[in-house]
């Protein structure tokens, strides 16, 4: 036990006396947590609209007014032909074009039927889908108003209609930050846990200082624990700072209990540190370990459901996500913070992460040899 205490002392000093590491460990996460959520606003608004109005009637003017008043669209371009309008989409000056045909008003009033053309830049599928849907909603609304003018009012509706009411739970103002901040926090904690720990061990290899430890009476379990515990503590510190920033800066107060988050984070970090340890046992140089842990964390992060929902992924990618500890923590974090889930709700997640922890650490300890060469 005393050996461990000395080892911990050595490690902590090594970390805290390296100003670069200290900066990266503590300042970077804060800066990121302050900047990233501002950038990661995925709400679809400010859709640039290019308009081609061949009609120039009172109806078309009213329609345009209704669209710009909705707040989703910005009328950035007013073209005279479909081709010219299409070119503005090509130059990324507009995301969406609406063509109002000549005789729009006459057709609607006389024939009772007219057709509008909408073309959407669909390279970004979500933006295109939602933008198109918003515009269609507005058009439908406009249609109903126009119809109400011409069709005599009657007490019962002429045809069966199903009214759809929406309610948005857990985040009624649709604030994207509530969704992103907990996820980003998980990403930061994960990066510290995995890359720093693995790099730290490989550094001893590369510097040759591992020799000294190998010839000392320190047992390999002690050595590994001595490497992991400081990072475990530091990652939890970063988590605490992050939760405080979330509370003070973004006003995110978890609906669930902070203890639930910490309990899960503690187990999760064991898994992540184990993974870092495992990677380090396979790397010979810092360059290798950095690259490998970088790619692994990158894959883990991008496939974690932080940016894109896991259910949308194809089956095989969902299987990968099931073996990705990060996705469990992100899910848990969002569940506890936004929905107030408790221990009972996240039991499957805890068991899964516990499994990872045992698996990674076990493999790493088996693979770590106290011999050089």
């Amino acid at each position: 036990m005393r050996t461990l205490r000395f080892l911990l002392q050595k490690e902590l000093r090594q970390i805290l006396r390296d100003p670069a590491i200290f900066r990266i460990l503590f300042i970077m996460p804060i800066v990121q947590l302050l900047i990233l959520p501002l950038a990661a606003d995925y709400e679809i608004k400010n859709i640039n609209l290019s308009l081609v109005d061949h009609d120039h009637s009172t109806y078309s003017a009213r329609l345009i007014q209704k669209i710009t008043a909705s707040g989703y669209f910005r009328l950035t371009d007013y073209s005279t032909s479909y081709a010219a309008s299409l070119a503005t989409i090509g130059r990324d000056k507009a995301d969406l074009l609406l063509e109002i045909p000549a005789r729009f008003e006459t057709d609607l009033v006389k024939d009772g039927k007219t057709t509008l053309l909408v073309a959407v830049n669909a390279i970004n599928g979500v933006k295109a889908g939602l933008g198109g849907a918003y515009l269609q909603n507005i058009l439908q609304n406009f249609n109903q108003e126009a119809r109400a003018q011409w069709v005599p009012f009657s007490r019962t509706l002429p045809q069966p209609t199903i009214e759809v009411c929406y309610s948005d739970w857990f985040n009624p103002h649709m604030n994207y930050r509530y969704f992103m901040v907990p996820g980003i926090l998980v990403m930061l904690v994960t990066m510290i846990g995995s890359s720093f720990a693995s790099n730290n061990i490989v550094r001893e290899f590369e510097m040759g200082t591992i020799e000294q430890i190998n010839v000392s009476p320190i047992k390999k379990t002690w050595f590994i624990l001595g490497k992991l515990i400081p990072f475990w503590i530091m990652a939890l510190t970063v988590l605490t700072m992050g939760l405080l920033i979330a509370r003070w800066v973004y006003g995110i107060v978890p609906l669930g209990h902070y203890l639930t988050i910490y309990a899960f984070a503690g187990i999760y970090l064991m898994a992540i540190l184990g993974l870092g340890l495992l990677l380090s046992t396979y790397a010979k140089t810092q360059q290798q370990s950095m690259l490998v842990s970088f790619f692994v964390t990158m894959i883990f992060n991008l496939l974690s459901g932080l940016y894109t929902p896991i259910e949308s992924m194809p089956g095989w990618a969902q299987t990968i996500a099931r073996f990705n500890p990060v996705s469990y923590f992100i899910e848990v974090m969002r569940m506890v913070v936004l929905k107030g889930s408790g221990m009972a709700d996240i039991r499957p997640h805890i068991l899964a992460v516990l499994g990872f922890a045992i698996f990674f650490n076990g493999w790493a300890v088996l693979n770590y040899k106290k011999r050089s060469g």
Partner: protein
Amino acid sequence: MRQFLIFVRKEWYHIWRDKRTLFILIGMPIVQIVLYGFALTNEVKNSGIAILDESRDPATTALIQKIDASRYFEVIRVIHSAAEIEAVFRQGKIRLAVVFPRQFRADLLHTNHAQVQLVADASDPNTANTLTNYASFIINDYQQSLNQGQGLPYRIDTQVRMLYNPELKGAYNFVPGVMALVLMLVCTMMTSIAIVREKEMGTMEVLLVSPLKPFRIIIAKTVPYLLISFLNIVSILLLSVYALDVPITGSITLLLGESMLFTGTSLSIGLLISNTAKTQQTAMFTSMMSLFLPTLLFSGFLFPIENMPFPLRVLSNVVPSKWYFIIVKAVMIKGLGLAAVWKETVILAGMTLLFLGISIKNFKIRLE
């Protein structure tokens, strides 16, 4: 010139004889483009939903069937009381709950007016929006099938055309983004680490006392990485065309040329970082923090730049990947020529020259 080539060969051996790193350099971009190309998508499909049907009549049964049959939804829970809705949301299995009130069909037949309630888990606002939109389309569809034969008067129809990407595939947006990400990563991180390693190992001293000019030493270091990046670009493009079905509609030469230009920009940033960093660890984390995350955030491929607050929008202009992303989208997917992207090209070239200039000027030829 001969000396220069010898130095290039030396660098090449460094890379070539470290098989593990080489494997990562060439293999990882391929793995990533496949992983992200297929997996990183915002398309909504097979979202789990819960049904609370208090009326259980033919109309609700038909609607539920219609919803379950669509590729967007999968009914995974049937619940029996409103109180249960919150509990199933808390377990995180479902994204939407559809609630039919009592006497749904009776209301529909007698008063011509019935209600459906959609309760969405809005913790993810976009998915929630998309799901409610899809669900109301399905319900509207059902309603129209009830009204068959008697179209409404005074109707405005909309014809919607999805340009460039009619199937709304996620890969169209992600392939250009991943290209920027991978090139940035390989070039910047690897060059900066390669140079700092010489410093850390002490071999920089040997290089500095050699007859070759320091400037040439540095250039020689980047040449092999330029080659590897070219290989990576080609393999990414081949994969995106043949595996992901993202076609190259514009000129391939232009696309390759622009990619090489962007590689140059990334290499020059790598040089800049290596000037200031003392240890490999710092070099690595500086590249990661100052490039990888900004690329992810500010290139516009994951998050819309136009939504950001003004200072960040200004900041996004200094991120080279943003310009590269615009170029790749224009050339590869929209099929535009150099005339459409000359401005972006000039900006990238300017950045490259600027970074190169600064790093050559700051390059220390003296040991400390």
